[in-house]
Structure formats: C-alpha cells, structure tokens
C-alpha cells in the first residue's frame, strides 16, 4: 500500500533533469501516502543506470530488463511496467510529463484500468492532486479512485532530487513482455543538435517570436544574445509554424513548459497559449515594439523597442557587464 514506482526515463546513457524531478516527486508521494519509492530503469541492459538512480534517496532501484526495451516504444514499455506493477503490488506509477512520459503513462493506465492525473503541479496531503486546465487558466483539485493510480508531474513544479549520500539496493528483473504482441518499429530519431543548455533545464531562457521575421534573424540577431547570456533558446508557436526554428524549441500550452529564473521574450506578442508555457518563470522580460502586446501584462520588466536594435545592444551590455 502506498508504494510508488518511479519511471526513470533515460536517453543516451544518462538521466535528464526531468528524471530527477520525477524521483523527487515520487519520494514526496511515497512519504505522503505511506509507502516506498522505487525507481524503475527500463532497457536492454539498464543495471548501470539503475545503480546511478539508486543514489537519489529511493528505497530500491529496479533494472527492468528485456531486449524489446532497448529503444523507447509505448507498447513494450507499457506491457513491461504493467506486469511490474502487478508483481510488486505498487499503488502508484509516477513519471515526468516529458514526451515519453506523456506517450507512455496513459497507455499504461489503460492497461491497468487505472485513472491518470496528467501533469500535476502539487501532491496534497489529503490524497488529492492539483493540475492545470484551460492552458493554466484554471487549477483543478482532483481525486483518483481505485487500487492503482498513474500520475505524471509537470517538470517545472518540483525540484530535482539530490544525491542522498547512500545507495539503495538494485534489483534486476526480467520484464514480462509478449514480444509477438509488439507491433511498432523504431525507425529513426532526428535530434536537433545544439551545444546550448536544454530548454527545460536552463537558468535563463531567451525566446524569439514572429517578430524576428526569419530563421536567419534567429541566427544573426537572437543567438548572439542567447549565447552571451549562456541561455537556452526557445520560440513561440508562430515562429515554429513559420519554419524559423525546429519544433522542439516551442514554449507553450502544447509545447514545452519552462520556469527558469529569467525568461526573455523577444518579438513575442504573448498569446494565452504561450503564457501557459512560461508564466511561472521567476523574472519575465519582454522586448516588443508594440506597447499594447499582452506579453507586457506578465512581464516584470518591459522594453518597448525595435528588437533589431535592442537585442544586439543588449548582447553588448551583457558582455560589458561580464567583463566589468
């Protein structure tokens, strides 16, 4: 009763920060519901990674092993996790609402006939959860019924777990998967190459909108500021739709949700759907030539200016500051 299985997503042999967030949220959930927090690393040879996650305060780390788990695919992973839930008698499965978490958790929930709370921002003591609805314009308090519940957490709503100073036991479990029932083939992953910090992990995010007018301008005008600030780069939906930048830069209700210490919105008008992705940032700056732009309603500091002048100027000023 109360045991939490934490899905520890990994890519390229390491854990993204979002996985440490899941661990921390899982530890909180286990504490509040009176159970153990068990990290689960799925893969074809996940023992090393399981040993790594075992250092973050969980009671146990499971290396869920099977050849079919080599690449992430929903059907294989849902089958493997579902049998692990049944085997361990866990009450909760928790993951961060990353692209993988969002793809996997509902399929797992249906397999277990379990209700699922998507992208929660808080775990209440009374057994309820809080999650955003209507692009974050309403916060819903919800309750889940049944012996098993599936939960994904918003990555920006919980801190990342820190090393606990000890290492929990690692248990290798062979996943029970009916390989003949698997129907999906992984073909390719076209990763957007970047040396910049990850959008969901950076302390500073500088985002560009339609005001930049072209992908070239993103490179020549915005990127120098992004790099001078050591920031991650984001974009509005309009900029992505127009083909200025790749899709994985989109910040918003249906893109990435970020909450950095500093968010600089350049040439972004501030549609409700964009705000949904960044309004929890600590400090928001807006640079826009339209003083009526809705973005100024959420900005702590607003500069009404032509971005093509202001942004290069700002890069210069930041550079001066760094060397002063």
């Amino acid at each position, binding site marked *: 009763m109360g045991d939490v299985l934490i899905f520890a997503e990994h890519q390229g042999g390491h854990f993204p920060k979002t996985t440490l967030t899941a661990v921390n949220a899982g530890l909180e959930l286990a504490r509040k519901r009176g159970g153990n927090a068990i990290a689960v690393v799925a893969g074809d040879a996940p023992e090393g990674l399981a040993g790594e996650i075992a250092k973050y305060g969980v009671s146990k780390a499971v290396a869920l092993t099977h050849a079919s788990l080599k690449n992430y695919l929903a059907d294989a992973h*849902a089958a493997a996790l579902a049998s692990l839930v049944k085997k361990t008698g866990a009450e909760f499965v928790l993951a961060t609402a990353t692209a993988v978490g*969002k793809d996997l958790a509902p399929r797992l*929930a*249906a397999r277990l*006939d*379990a209700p699922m709370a998507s992208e929660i921002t808080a775990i209440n003591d009374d057994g309820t959860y809080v999650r955003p609805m*209507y692009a974050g314009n309403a916060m*819903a308090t919800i309750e889940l019924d049944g012996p098993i519940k599936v939960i994904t957490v918003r990555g920006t709503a919980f801190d990342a777990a820190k090393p606990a100073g000890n290492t929990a036991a690692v248990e290798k479990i062979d996943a029970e998967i009916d390989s003949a029932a698997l129907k999906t083939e992984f073909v390719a992953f076209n990763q957007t190459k970047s040396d910049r910090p990850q959008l969901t992990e950076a302390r500073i995010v500088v985002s560009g909108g339609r005001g930049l007018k072209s992908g070239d301008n993103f490179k020549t005008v915005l990127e120098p500021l992004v790099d001078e600030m050591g920031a991650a780069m984001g974009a509005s939906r309009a900029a992505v739709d127009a083909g200025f930048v790749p899709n994985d830069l989109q910040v918003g209700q249906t893109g990435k949700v970020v909450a950095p210490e500093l968010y600089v919105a350049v040439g972004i008008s501030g549609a*409700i759907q964009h705000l949904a992705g960044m309004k929890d940032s600590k400090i928001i700056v807006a640079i826009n030539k339209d003083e009526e732009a809705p973005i*100024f309603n959420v900005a702590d500091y607003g500069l009404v200016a032509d971005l093509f002048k202001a942004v290069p100027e700002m890069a210069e000023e930041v550079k001066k500051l760094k060397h002063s």
Partner: protein
Amino acid sequence: MKILVPIKRVPDPATTIRVLPDGSGIATDNVKWVINPFDEIAIEEALRIKEKQGGEVVLVTIGQSTWQEQLRTGLAMGADRAILVKSEAPLDTLAIARILAKIAADEKPELVLLGKQAIDDDSNQVGQMLAEMLGWPQATFASKVEFAGQKVTVTREVDGGLETIAFNLPAVVTTDLRLNEPRYASLPGIMKARKKELKEIPAESLGVNLAPKLRIKTLAAPPKRQAGKKVGSVQELVQVLHTEAKVI
C-alpha cells in the same frame, strides 16, 4: 480506408477563461464553442487521406445534443457521417476511451485519428488509452503520416527533435500542430452537411463501464503575477536585471 475521427467541443482558444466563484466550473456566458483545434487537424488529415486513397471519414463525439453543431462543421468540411454519443454525466478519460473502443469495434475503422489533447482539459490521454484498449499501435504528436499499403510511417514531435516510428494498420494516431492546416468549410459543404447522417445514441446503451475514477473536486484561478514596469532603455534593463532582480 475507413477513418474514425473522435472530436471534442471546447471553448474557442481565444476565450478569456473565468473560474466561477464557487469553483464548480468556468463561466460559459462569454464562451464561443468550437471543435478542439487538434481534432480539426485530425479531420483535415482524414479528409486528405480519403482524397488520396478513397474511403470514409466517420466523426464521433461524446457529449450533449448541442454538440451536433461541431459534428455538422466537421461534416461540412467533408466528413461522411457522424455519431453523437449522448452523455449528460461527466466522463473521465477511461470512460471516453472505452466508449470509443466500443464504437471502433462496431465501425471497424483502419485508422483512428484524433487530437493529441483537448485544450480545455489538457489531459493528453484518450488516444493512448484507446490504442491500448484496442491492442493497436499508437503514434502520438504526429507531424507527418505516410502510407505504403498497410504500413504507416509517422514522424512525431518529441522533446529533442523528431522521431520516426512505423507499424501496420489498424492504428491510433494523435495529431500535433504542424501536421496540417485545416480547411474552412465551404458553402456547398455546409449545404451538403445538412443531409449527411448524424446518429445520436445514448452512452448507456453501449454497455461499457462509465463510472468515473477521476473526479474534479474544485477549480481555482491560478496565482496572478504582480504587474511589472517598463524600462526606458537597454542599458536600464541590463542594470535592473543585475542589481534589482539579480538574475544576471
């Protein structure tokens, strides 16, 4: 190819959402109701597939009789017929998926195409749940869908870029923003839509478990940000960020 497209009625994305003082829901007096934008993209994709390969596009929605309006819009875009599963009681995503699974079992589509999430609920669950209940492959957040006979190759928008997966029909695909740009219903389309079949069936008649396992207890407005200030120059901006906000 027969394509089933589940759609949902939601408030227009530009609506200013106001939570009712008692937390029981949102104010609906100023709401314009539309087809969930992601479901519109699904209808469009289904129509394009039908235009290329032939077949039938069947819409289904689960809600009140007034939701006929959205089904008629979809029929006006070019869908062939529609099903309205009537339900007054609130249904959770599991119940919605069970209803759709039953409809799919009756209709036997080769493809179920639906939006990745409804912009009111933002749950992003139904497509995945439905795929599991049917035992079909799923491809979520699709930005491109290609066919070669029974084989489907889908490009998906994921965290670090674009992922491609492949599987055979039948399957469930959920749509993302850049899959296509939906057409507007034409006037001839609107006229034709009036004569297309729109069947209403009560949810209870489907024989699936409708009892909710997820309940919304209350809604609250999110914390409001304090109003900020305008700065007069880039120099001033960098100064305040350094000395006042202390973020650089």
